[in-house]
């Protein structure tokens, strides 16, 4: 009788598994991605405009492809809950997915320099991209002024992104390679 129940439970689980719209493995992967991105963000909060989120999103997009977009929006939601849903939150809604999209489109590139330069460019243009909501709030002048005022921080952001990518891209990529078992092309310098 017990054996029969167990079999029934097992078949229930199998049936449920088949009905799951998102596989459990994907949910777990997304959860880990969100947790690591958030932890990386919080761990470097004491250094203004030095962040690992860019690097993590690039790497996760290279390994987990479209799943990364779910992780990004979960991360953005957590950020909103933690720090409030201000105008900056609207910027986050498109700026990080944009990075993932660019990475996805360039996923076949195997040059380390390319990823370093993409990170740096993203950092340098962060303020310009973030100023877009101000176009609708206060017009082009307000957006331009807002962007100009933040240029020193954008430059720090760009240089920091370049440096962090140069140092951490290869080791983090090899860790992800080991965890996922995915074979990626050899990086070229």
């Amino acid at each position, binding site marked *: 009788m017990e054996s029969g129940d167990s079999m029934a439970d097992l078949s229930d689980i199998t049936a449920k598994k088949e009905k799951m719209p998102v596989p459990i493995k994907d949910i777990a992967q997304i959860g880990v991605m969100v947790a690591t991105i958030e932890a990386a963000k919080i761990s470097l909060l004491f250094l203004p405009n030095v962040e690992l989120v860019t690097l993590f999103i690039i790497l996760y997009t290279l390994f987990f492809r479209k799943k990364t977009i779910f992780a990004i929006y979960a991360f953005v939601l957590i950020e909103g809950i933690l720090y409030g849903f201000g105008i900056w939150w609207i910027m986050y809604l498109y700026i990080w997915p944009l990075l993932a999209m660019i990475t996805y489109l360039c996923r076949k590139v195997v040059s380390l320099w390319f990823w370093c*330069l993409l990170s*740096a460019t993203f950092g340098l243009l962060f303020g310009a991209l973030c100023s877009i909501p101000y176009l609708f709030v206060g017009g082009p002048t307000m957006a331009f*002024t807002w962007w*100009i*005022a933040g240029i*020193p921080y954008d*430059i720090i952001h760009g240089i920091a992104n370049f440096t962090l990518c140069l140092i951490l891209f290869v080791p983090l990529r090899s860790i992800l390679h080991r965890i996922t078992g995915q074979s990626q092309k050899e990086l070229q310098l």
Partner: protein
Amino acid sequence: MPLMRQMGENMTQETNQKSKALKVVLAVAAMLVIIAGMLFLYSKFSPKPVVGAKAITVDVVDDAGTLKEYSLNTDAEFLKQALEEIEDLEITGEDSDYGFMVTAVNGLQAVYDVDGAYWSFYVNDTYCEYGVDAQPVYDGDAFKIEYTLAE
């Protein structure tokens, strides 16, 4: 023939590597150009703090009637502080029960009891109602300090 092929392959590899190195150099150079451009825009359009938001003029007329003109941008609230900010202007005086009394301007003394003269202060051609340390400073004010003989 194999040797020639090998040499050809080596040359192709070398050219590829050079081309890649050139691309990296160009990309880094482009990045530096972007940074330079951003710095230029920042220096040109960034908000600058206003140093000395009030523009005033101070005319000094000595005992011979000679006029010396000064102009200043200042944040000073009162005239005494503004006068102290003018490099070429030397104001001497002493604190009294009625405030700061100016006794000499640019070394020229005018003490009523001793010289039978005093320093008169005007603002926009009107005699100042307050002492030098209580006279407010507004943007565009024209002050005059004049050696005046007692009548």
